[in-house]
């Protein structure tokens, strides 16, 4: 039971993040600071005594949001604007972000109009990662955001508190990464939906509370039987940046005979991949973290000519002993659409099977997708025992 209890709580919070925030606010009387994905350092808001919450795509269909944003935008931006227009985000005292995605900028403008009583704070992070001034500019951006947060809360965020928050967040990330390692090794049996709720709830919950639950979970992991040769095929999930893939989609993969052993989803390993160095000045540390994240798990929303996402994926799959990759592309996600041909060609060259699925906020044709996934699983299963190029290091892969 001890293993299932934390998982149940994570799933509960993941299903109703704003409900959690409202209860937390009622209980503590402290502010809730929302942020847009994917690079705002929540440590800043935490150190200021607030609850940092990464705004999540809602399951609700878009209604009033249609009056603010066109339907040819990604589900995350449309849903966020819709939630703002419906008043669902009223629990947020402020929203902070620094990410530069053209659709997100449109959403931010609309949210600012829809929530006139909510302070929306923005300072654009540099997304060109190779420039001599990238580190300095990233640090400056975080410092600006910190100053605006201090102005808003009318209290300083002191360095000691920030260091404590950084240490706590690092601890939280490390525990989740341990779960990832255990999943690769077969020491823990977590479904993809369960793993997602572990990460997603971490984006929402009070970090102390979440970390305590993670420790409880890890202490209670039941022993697993060794996998046999009839085990499901091992897949890596890739893509889906700002929003979480729908749990029913993840469950369907498993129903089709796949087991997810790794991912680079934002609601997955991307979120917890990188720690903030604790031996640096905290603002230096945050800037370092921002840059390290993109070399650790390259993101197509950044441009960095000396890092290859495709090579990273092939390397990650080798480490995870994954047999195939399912690419989840959120419809209208421009960075992903730009980069996908690179990934496709690299995987074809390496002779590693992959399947592209386009996801939508509403109306996904699940049965059509199921047929495609079943075929993919069958194809990968037939390749078992065949030597694969993916087992070899690939050019451009980070050491």
């Amino acid at each position, binding site marked *: 039971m001890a293993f299932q209890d934390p998982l149940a709580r994570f799933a509960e919070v993941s299903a109703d993040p704003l409900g959690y925030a409202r209860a937390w606010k009622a209980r503590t009387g402290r502010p809730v600071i929302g942020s847009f994905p994917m690079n705002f350092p929540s440590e800043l808001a935490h150190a200021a005594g607030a609850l940092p919450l990464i705004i999540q795509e809602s399951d609700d269909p878009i209604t009033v949001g249609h009056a603010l*944003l066109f339907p040819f935008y990604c589900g995350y931006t449309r849903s966020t604007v819709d939630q703002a227009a419906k008043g669902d985000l009223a629990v947020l005292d402020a929203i902070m972000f620094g990410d*530069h*995605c053209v659709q997100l900028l*449109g959403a931010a*403008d609309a949210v600012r109009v829809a929530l006139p009583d909510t302070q929306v704070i*923005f300072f654009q992070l540099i997304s060109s990662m190779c420039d001599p001034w990238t580190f300095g500019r990233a640090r400056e951006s975080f410092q600006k955001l910190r100053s605006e947060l201090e102005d808003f809360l009318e209290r300083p965020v002191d360095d000691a508190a920030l260091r404590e928050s950084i240490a706590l967040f690092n601890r939280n990330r490390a525990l989740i990464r341990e779960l990832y390692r255990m999943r690769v090794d077969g020491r823990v049996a977590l479904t993809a939906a369960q793993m997602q709720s572990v990460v997603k709830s971490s984006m929402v919950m009070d970090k102390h509370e979440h970390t305590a639950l993670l420790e409880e979970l890890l202490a209670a992991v039941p022993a697993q039987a060794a996998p046999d040769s009839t085990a499901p095929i091992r897949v890596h999930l890739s893509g889906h940046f700002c929003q979480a893939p729908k749990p029913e989609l993840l469950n369907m993969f498993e129903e089709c005979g796949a087991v997810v052993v790794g991912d680079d989803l934002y609601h997955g390993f991307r979120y917890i991949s990188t720690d903030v160095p604790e031996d640096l000045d905290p603002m230096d540390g945050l800037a370092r973290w921002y840059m390290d994240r993109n070399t650790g798990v390259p993101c197509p929303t950044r441009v960095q000519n000396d890092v290859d996402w495709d090579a990273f994926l092939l390397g990650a799959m080798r480490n995870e002993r994954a047999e195939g990759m399912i690419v989840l592309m959120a419809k209208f996600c*421009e960075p992903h659409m*730009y980069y996908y041909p690179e990934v496709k060609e690299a995987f074809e060259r390496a002779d590693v099977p992959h399947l592209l699925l386009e996801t939508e906020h509403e109306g996904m044709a699940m049965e059509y997708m199921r047929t495609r996934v079943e075929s993919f699983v069958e194809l990968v299963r037939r390749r078992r025992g065949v030597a694969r190029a993916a087992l070899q290091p690939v050019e451009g892969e980070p050491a």
Partner: protein
Amino acid sequence: MNAPVQPPKLPGAANKLKSTRMAGKLVNEYWEMVWRAKEEGKLVCWYEGSSINPFLEAADIVWVHGEAYSAMLAARHQEGPAQAAAEERGYSRELCSYARTHLGCAVNNQRHRNGSDSAFADVPADEDISAKLPPPDMIISAYAYCSTGQQWDEMTSRLFGKKIPIFNVSIPWIWASGKDAGYCRGKEWEETSVYVARQLEEMVKFIEERTGKPYPWDRLRELMRNVKRASELRLEAMDMCTARPAPATLFDWSVSIAPINQLPCTTDIVDYFTKVRDEVAERVRTGEGAVPKEKYRLFFDGIMNWNKLGWLAEKFAKYDAAVVAGRYTHMAFWQEPDLIDANDPVMGMGQNYLICPNNHSSPILIDLVMGLCEKYQVDGIVFHATRTCRAFTNPMHLIAETAHSRLGLQTSMFEGDVADESFYKDELLNTRVEAMLEAIDARRLATA
């Protein structure tokens, strides 16, 4: 793939400026120069977005503006082969069609240089001008507002095997934070201007590395004097279109984008805009309108649909509607010449790059649009909901709402795209514009 469909001919209703015909000649000469670049041993730079071309022209580097090439292909209905090549490589048609078309040119270019697995595919058709684009020797990315620009350049670099040197200039969005924030003012504006100018100076060092020569600053100053003068003349002519009937429309200004945006910054562009200004002035003097029976005055919000430029000009003229101004034409392209000090041009150039028509967040942007609507005394706004250009569609609903609530303007939206005509729905445009014009009529009757 889009078939190169020629729109059916409508009876000519638009009284276009005669002086803009010279733009076609200048544009053709410019692209001929680009296509000859390799034969002449010139370095070629690909770039998108901001008009950094004077920096390149001064250094004798041939410049290729990605959007301009895509727009030119679309305007000539020759975008099909490039878009097909892009789609074949896996680029979704929901991507910016400027980028998709330009990336398709890069795919074609690589294919023709490196061969392909097809006995036929590596031979460009004679009329396939997408394959004529010379490959870059360098890439400079300096894109305001739209994240797609930087990613497009990065992908271009990767298409060429990351062997082409690339330089990124980051141009932040003006969020309008702080009580002093406004159009071209406030601490955020000042700090961002300095940030961009410093990067431009680094960009010049990058150019020097490529050419192996000291940067010719005097030449840049000379070119920027021409740009500044051309811009002043253009704005002067635009201002005269507050007259009734309007002597020129948005479609004349769209034809005139190339001369201000990417043609060589010689005295030719000063001559061009002098002639345009003079013709506009003469029309004002004689009362000659760009739409002979001007009954309605409209604002056009959105980027141009290059496949349909002439088609739309005729369509609105047939409705007796003069599209007198637009966000794309009237809020961009060296829009603030007073900021340019030709003797020390870098800061002013950077500031003009920051004044892309989308690079200010909605509080500032909407005020600017409302100001233009009042200045040109429009009856309504037509929104071109550009399917793959979210940079332009982002604030449209907010603008429409404000136009209605603040100025009582009628608005209408139609779907289309910059360079992919498959998104254009003619019947939707017809019914929606007709409905808007009827509403304007009804309002006039009610207040008569």
